[in-house]
């Protein structure tokens, strides 16, 4: 099956794009056909991803498999180099899965101004960008995919986003939420990635020495890590940090997130939360740390501080929200704080924590945004003061919301727990050379953050789910979860439990890769 070996990843990446092009050829009026076609394409992509996972040699998860390395832009030494290892595999499968679920959910839920074809086409382009980012092993290729997700998301937010007018502090006129959010999202990310690109280029030029050609190849750059030292490495790390941290998002680069998540259409929020946020943290693990390990160690305390601030800050901000979707959006700041705290420890446990944290956050927050969308769909409001008694009006949806909230607050036995727990575990004993007392302080603050997380989640549940429904909804018929919703959510629910009970589903793939990464990166520095 060499054919599969060499083509599977490329197909996973480009099948959605081809699907998008074909969908454009289907007349706009034939909505059903467009939907079915998109579903077919996304399911095919998922099947391929699962096949890749099934054929993946977990015994050699530390190395890249399904590798393809072809010349692409030979003049600048950029290759079409793709591959998966244990770190990227779970994220790739997650990405393929979430896209399928989004297509299913979209089936009957279209935000104004509808136009399913355009929406699905954008979603497919987004899928290509996301899948591509997770398999790219060349910095230029990575950059392209990393950026490719921006446009579709920009249009999703800008066209299908929230149309309510909002007063933005600092501006005289009110603006539509979607317009403000879309441009904010874009400018922020672009700003970060412009510097990221400068960092990539600097790495490229520095990587050439003696008879060695300069290269953008990530594994090759990792092997040449010793070439990047001192101020140079510090600056390059800083440049890449800007790009990745904005995407994660880390405090204080996070403010695009609540706006973008709140304004985006449901599926947009889901994709943003479940996949797009992971691109940044993944890049830290894939690029920044292995290529610049020593510098990463210099930066780690700063990252940890920002991560911990993010955890506390995100949780407190959640407590002040009145809009349920905005609350969920802010919760991502806290959760990604745990992911980044794990990364900052630079230990095997911490980086593992980050990956499982990413997967869990993808599943859980994705589901929460689905729910927020459906709640909005039913009540036409997301103000928590007006909701209440949801569990009575819609027991199934209320139940799922309760379940997901519990998962989100890190209930052991569900997926969300491992990321938090392991991040704290890693912080107790960070990489040698990092200040132990410093990271232990971070651990304690992070642990306090879990309490605050529980606080706002429980509070949200009480406001939305419990109590008697207000008189506003008396006599109204509410459709409980419909079958499209159920079809989209059930896999997430099952996975949240499965990963919670058996984290090896994720860690089984990642651990070897992470151990290899940490060893390679820090063996030289006496780790």
């Amino acid at each position, binding site marked *: 099956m060499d054919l599969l070996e060499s083509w599977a990843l490329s197909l996973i990446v480009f099948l959605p794009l081809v699907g998008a092009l074909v969908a454009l050829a289907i007349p706009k009026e034939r909505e059903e056909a467009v939907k079915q076609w998109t579903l077919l394409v996304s399911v095919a992509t998922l099947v391929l991803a699962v096949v890749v996972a099934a054929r993946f040699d977990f015994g050699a998860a530390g190395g890249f498999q399904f590798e393809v390395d072809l010349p692409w832009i030979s003049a600048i030494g950029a290759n079409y180099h793709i591959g998966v290892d244990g770190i990227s595999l779970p994220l790739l499968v997650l990405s393929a899965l979430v896209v399928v679920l989004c297509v299913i959910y979209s089936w009957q839920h279209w935000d104004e101004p509808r136009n399913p074809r355009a929406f699905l086409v954008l979603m497919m382009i987004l899928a290509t960008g996301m899948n591509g980012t997770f398999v790219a092993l060349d910095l230029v290729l990575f950059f392209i995919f990393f950026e490719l997700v921006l446009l579709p998301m920009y249009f999703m937010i800008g066209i299908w986003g929230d149309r309510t007018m909002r007063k933005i502090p600092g501006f005289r006129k009110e603006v539509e939420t979607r317009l403000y959010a879309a441009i904010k999202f874009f400018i922020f990310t672009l700003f970060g990635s412009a510097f990221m690109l400068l960092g990539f280029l600097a790495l490229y030029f520095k990587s050439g020495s003696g008879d060695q050609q300069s290269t953008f190849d990530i594994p090759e750059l990792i092997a040449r890590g010793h070439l990047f030292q001192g101020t140079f490495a510090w600056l390059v790390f800083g440049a890449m940090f800007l790009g990745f941290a904005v995407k994660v998002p880390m405090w204080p680069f996070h403010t695009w997130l609540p706006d973008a998540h709140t304004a985006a259409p449901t599926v947009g929020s889901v994709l943003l939360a479940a996949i797009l946020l992971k691109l940044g943290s993944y890049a830290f693990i894939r690029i920044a740390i292995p290529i610049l390990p020593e510098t990463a160690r210099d930066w780690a305390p700063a990252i940890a501080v920002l991560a911990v601030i993010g955890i506390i800050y995100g949780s407190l901000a959640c407590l002040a929200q009145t809009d349920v979707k905005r609350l969920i959006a802010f919760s991502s700041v806290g959760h990604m704080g745990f992911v980044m705290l794990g990364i900052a420890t630079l230990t095997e446990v911490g980086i593992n924590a980050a990956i499982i944290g990413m997967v869990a956050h993808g599943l859980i927050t994705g589901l929460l945004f689905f729910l927020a969308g459906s709640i909005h769909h039913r009540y036409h409001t997301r103000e928590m003061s007006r909701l209440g008694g949801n569990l009575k009006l819609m027991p199934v949806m209320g139940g799922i919301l309760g379940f997901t909230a519990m998962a989100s607050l890190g209930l052991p036995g569900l997926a969300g727990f491992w990321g938090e727990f392991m991040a*704290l575990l890693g912080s107790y004993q960070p990489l040698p050379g990092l200040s132990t007392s410093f990271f232990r302080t971070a651990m304690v603050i992070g642990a306090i953050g879990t309490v605050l997380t529980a606080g706002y989640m429980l*509070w949200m549940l009480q406001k939305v789910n419990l109590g008697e429904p207000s008189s506003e909804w008396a006599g109204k018929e509410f459709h409980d979860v419909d079958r499209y919703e159920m079809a989209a959510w059930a896999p997430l629910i099952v996975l949240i439990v499965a990963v919670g009970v058996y984290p090896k589903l994720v860690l089984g793939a990642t651990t070897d890769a992470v151990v290899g990464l940490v060893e390679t990166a820090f063996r030289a520095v006496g780790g």
Partner: protein
Amino acid sequence: MGVSTDLYLAAEGAAVAATTGGIFSEWAGLMLIGPMLAFVVIVMFGKRMRYQGAEVAIGVMAFNFVWSSVLLVLNMGEKGVLYERSLEIASVGGGLVFELGWIVDGLSIMMYWVVAAVGLAVFVYAHGYMKEEVRVTFFFAALSLFAGSMLVLVGSPNLVQLIIGWEGVGLASYLLIGHNWELKENSSAAMKAFYTNKVADVGLVIGVIIIGIVLGSFHFWDLAAAAAEHSAALGPVAVTAGLLLFFGAMGKSAQFPLHIWLPDAMAGPTPVSALMHAATMVTAGIYLMARTFPLYQELATAARPWMIAAGTITLFGMGLLALVSDDIKRVLAYSTVSQLGYMMTAVAAGGYTAGLFHLFTHAFFKALLFLGAGSVIHAVHSNNMSDMGGLRRHMPDTYRTFVIGALALAGVFPLSGFWSKDEILATLGYEGYTLVMWIAVAGAFVTAFYMARAVALTFFGEYRGHGEPHESPPIMTRPLWALAVPAVLAGVVNIPGLKLPWIGSFTSWLSVRSVPMGDHHAEAIDLGLAAAGLAAAVAGLWMGWVAFGPSAADRPDRDRVEIPALYPLLRQKYYLDHAALGLVWVIREPAARAVNWVNDYVIDGVVNGVGALCQKLAGLVYGGVDQLGIDGAVHGLSWGTSGMGGLIRRIQSGRVQQYAGLLVAGLLLLVVVVLFVL
């Protein structure tokens, strides 16, 4: 994965020979999985079942009861059962492995059996109690979830699985306290319970992390072995880790000042209070302390005074609160808190067996009391003792069993409570905590006093409520009797000096059979101490009877205990709720609002400010630099002017000259830059 019995036996100083227990140990995990599966089955299909899922829950519980009874019997005598099985669920690098599995030893068998026995009684009772309630299906689902989580907790061979079960019972508690979530009061109580526990869990989690990293293992056995060997790695962090674990235990086991959630938790249906908030869940903290006992005994000795202090305050201070409560369930709740204080004090003082023995007996009589209270509430439709009275005649079964429970709780000879309390007193004395021992005796007096009050107000005098109260149906009273039996007899298993043939003693059952527990068991009863304890109990009962019995029925203010100085303080529950609420308020209002303000006006302010600044700058550059005061091309020009003439005029007026001038100026600028600056 696998059996490592040999390992344990090989450990230093194995106290008792052990068997594996055969198939009943090898498949003991079924007890953990069964209720969890029941939860899923009931949630998904319960509504379509004849008894709305109750049959599944009860069936599973009966199965567990049988299974754990077999284990209990196997563990009796001199040769105990010792078995462990673990399945790796993740290896996370750094040599750390997460596992799920089960452990079968004296301690866990006792817990399996208590959970199953009390659980079965309560489940059956609840089937009657909940007949007319809403959401019965979900109720039984949550009860199963609780049972499952509790068993995962007590069956855990390692600290990580313990956390899973630990928070699982927390979740079940949340769901069941808030069972009637339409009322804000109930949902708030549920939240309070969950949240207080979550605060405590920070301690547990960090403690587990410290132990896990230092030992490179989360196994209780490794912890015990390290403690026994006075491990150099564990030594320096032992006190910190020990106190952190204890902090976690304080939450679940309602130790002062984290007990505040437990009285509010009475908002849940009474069977819930009986099973979780009296007999089993709240003992999880005690269980944890017992499971990690070697740590405290060998290394974290410096932590013990703190634990004893907390336990002592709890056992006495919270008992006082039961005196002033009118709600029968709250009386019992404070009583539970107080009894948990006894257990904690005992374990902390080194009384491993004493604490667990009290846990064992308390489970039966406290569950019995709660179910009895539930039966009463069921009859009078009120929790308030001022709506009760004289129920002795209307509810004979309930009355009799309740009195048995009350006497057992008060510690009257020869009921079970007497023996377990006496063992605690003896241990405290033996370990040299004389002051604490006398406080515990005083606590026994308080216990007896408020139980006398509760019995008197509920069952004696005239009925003060509405309607005609009836005895509960057999499905509810039979469990009462079923629990009354162990409430009376359970003490037999650990009478000092008495060794039952074939059965052995509680002490021998409980010895964790690889590591010496190092606690003390009196070989003979200390008659003086027993007499003192009994005297305190009798005095309390008598004074309570005098103050609240039928003879005092005419006193208008007899419901109150006249302790003028203390009364307001007790009524306000030492103002701890106020403090907690205040803290929550600070977080939720000023702190959260401040953060949100910072987000919207400072961070976003900077972001928007940069945007606005760019626009301003753009205006400045465009208007000031780029256009240099020249307005757009033809804005000033009227159409009436003929083209060329106007243009020439404009050229003459200097527009183009201006451009040209700029061009030359630009050149000069470059010259200056190149020649002089760079």
